[in-house]
């Protein structure tokens, strides 16, 4: 029998001071990041902000500086350029300025590059142009989706456990989502619709670990009859620690495969998922149960089944 973690007796509740400080820092970072998103100061993908993105594959290596000055001359100085090293792929992104009458610029831009770089032909791999109105709508849909899933999860957990557990699980989930947003914002990584999808998936998945812990707490209150709630939490988390870590690990392995081999389109998506799995595992141990303890007190009343 291979055991990664064996008979641990870690005092998780005793560590909650440190855990709460770390979590508070992460969540504050996330809230700042969220505010910056709404102020338009974050690296939003063009599917949310509106704008144009073009992916070109050149035959030969190209000079980023040359292309940057070419575009600047054509009045697209604010375009962001990204190079996929080793593949001669160029990503050009141009955010919409927000006025409704904006013209689509992809076609003239491609023609300009074709004419000025005759020695290095390229294939247009993808073009995506999104009017500000659509970007706005997609963003609203994303917000609504996040709100509804949060509510649905609280209701489900309140039904399966009790209201306080449901809310604590939801807090842990929001903690995970805000943490990933905060880290993405600090690193300046692009947040697009796929990123939002990743956030929602993280929300759903990080609950898996929380549910495993909660299930055990409920069982131990009934069977073990320890003196305090905190003791019960400590025992329960230690008992399920190996499965909490291993279930996260299998998903983490799959996501890493996606991150390494899945190509550029899925890179940020996989990065967000990987972060979310790590943060989610941490929060199910250090955030969800302590929050229940804080709220419920040390009473050993049974949790309904």
């Amino acid at each position, binding site marked *: 029998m291979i055991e990664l973690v064996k008979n641990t007796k870690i005092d998780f509740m005793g560590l909650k001071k440190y855990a709460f400080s770390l979590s508070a820092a992460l969540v504050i970072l996330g809230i700042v990041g969220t505010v910056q998103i709404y102020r338009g100061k974050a690296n939003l993908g063009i599917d949310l902000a509106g704008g144009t993105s073009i992916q070109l594959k050149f035959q030969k290596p190209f000079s980023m500086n040359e292309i940057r000055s070419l575009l600047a001359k054509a009045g697209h100085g604010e375009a962001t350029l990204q190079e996929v090293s080793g593949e001669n792929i160029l990503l050009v992104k141009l955010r919409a300025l927000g006025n409704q009458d904006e013209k689509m610029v992809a076609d003239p831009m491609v023609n300009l590059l074709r004419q000025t770089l005759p020695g290095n032909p390229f294939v247009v791999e993808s073009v995506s142009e999104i009017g500000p109105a659509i970007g706005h709508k997609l963003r609203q849909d994303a917000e609504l989706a996040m709100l509804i899933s949060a509510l649905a999860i609280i209701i489900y957990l309140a039904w399966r456990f009790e209201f306080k557990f449901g809310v604590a699980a939801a807090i842990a989930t929001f903690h995970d989502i805000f943490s990933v947003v905060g880290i993405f914002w600090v690193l300046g990584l692009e947040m697009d619709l796929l990123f939002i999808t990743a956030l929602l998936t993280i929300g759903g998945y990080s*609950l898996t670990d929380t549910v495993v812990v909660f299930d055990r707490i409920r069982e131990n209150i009934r069977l073990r009859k320890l003196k305090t709630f905190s003791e019960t939490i400590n025992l329960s988390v230690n008992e399920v620690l190996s499965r909490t870590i291993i*279930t996260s690990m299998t998903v983490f392995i799959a996501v890493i*495969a996606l991150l390494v081999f899945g190509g550029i389109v*899925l890179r940020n998506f996989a990065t967000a998922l990987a972060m979310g799995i790590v943060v989610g595992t941490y929060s199910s141990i250090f955030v969800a149960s302590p929050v229940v303890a804080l709220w419920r007190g040390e009473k050993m009343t049974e949790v309904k089944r």
Partner: protein
Amino acid sequence: MWKSITGRITLIAALTAVSIIVLVPSLTDRVPAGWKDRMPKINLGLDLQGGVFLRLAVEIDKAIENTSMRYADDARAVCREKALPVLAFQKAGDGGFSLRFPPGDFASRAQAALKEEFPSLDVSLGEVKADGATVIARMKPAEIQAIRTNAVVQGVETIRNRIDQFGVREPQIIAEGEDRIVVQLPGVKDQQRAIELVGKTALLEFKLVDEGASVEEALKGNVPEDDQVLYQKSVDPQSGRATKSPMLVKKRALLTGDTIKTAKVNFGNQAGGAHVSLSFDTRGAKVFDRVTAENVKRRLAIVLDDTIYSAPVIQERISGGEAQITGSFTPEEASDLAIVLRAGSLPAPVKVIQNVSIGPSLGLDSIEKGVRAAVIGALLVVCFMAFYYRFSGMVADFALVFNILFLLSGMAAFSATLTLPGIAGIILAIGMAVDSNVLIFERIREEIRAKKSVRAAIDAGYDKAFWTVVDSHVTTLITAVILFQFGTGPIKGFAVTLSMGVAINLFTALVCTKVVFDYLNARKPMQALSI
């Protein structure tokens, strides 16, 4: 749960057989046609097979205004015929316009004349002042509503016609809401050309060139009342440089493209250039005959979407109902022009508000990378389970194979669309699939440590972990279902694979693994379990 081992094995075998029958035609072309044609197939999303997704905003207000201006032009022509002098003309918004007449009974006579001539207009008398009176004409609400509905319905129809003639396999053209059209063209290679073909209004008009007034004066702002300045675009065949030259034409179109019966591409009259020949229907031919007869030796501009293509001099009366559009066309341009003229013009101009074009090479690349990531991810997970849980891990891996098989055949059965994020969903589902078994196996380990017999430990493990497994699946399912509701194309694909994968996992992780342990225990209770 189910007691009979043979019963469970039969069920799994039957499901496997059905899955293989359903799935194989989606994976390979080398199966008999009779089998292939009867089976639903997994569709590839635009991001995997390449293609164009367009969301168009139909500019209905412009269509209403255009119609109203056409009424205004006609109304002024009627006034001219009846010798009613129009002093001033003004747009009045909401599909209306007003005309001002000098004092006297001119205004009331105009009102009566317009009422009789245009039953679809509400014509009323405006304020009467010392220096004259106005007549206000406005389209009736029913007429405006008709334009509104027609703009989208007819627009979808026209675009479908064009695309059908262009030749795209399984295009999707649907109205969205009140003023949007979504066009999906999978597999289109010449994407820019397809976008232009869809988005062109293609309003063809024949207008007389006004040679009596000076273009220079008009460019300075002194455009004669019934005229407008339009530009003729021409491309120099040698240098490829495009030039625009202004021309003064009558506002009123003598004939429009809606009377065209057919349009064909012809090659070869001038220096091998392509041109488009038109033939009009009976009504169009009659009008064209009259127009050419009345205007011999004058120039007739052929205008498409407010750009002059050519402005030949009418040499003689043309009675056959045939005309030609010449210009500096490439063969592709000429063929696309013929298509849009045959399919007719859009009732209202459209604006592309979302365009996602994926080249075929990127689609192939995405499939390759996605499949590679999925295979590597699955192998890593399989190896990890076999390493960590030994024999039991291999049992979980065995169930994982069924999980993937059922997931793919489920997608085929529902003709679901596989997208690149959908492949990511499969990879994620693979990682989550073994979670159920991890939860069960850890529980079994606990029971074994509590000195239970192997058989009892297994039963207790499955029993006690059951609700934990269900709970953890339901939370993921909730978010996946919500993503499906709100997501756009590629993300919907992710929600589909993830939710189906997780749902199927409940069956494979619980039933497919348990039956293996039960089978082994049935012959001789196991003394030790490799877990």
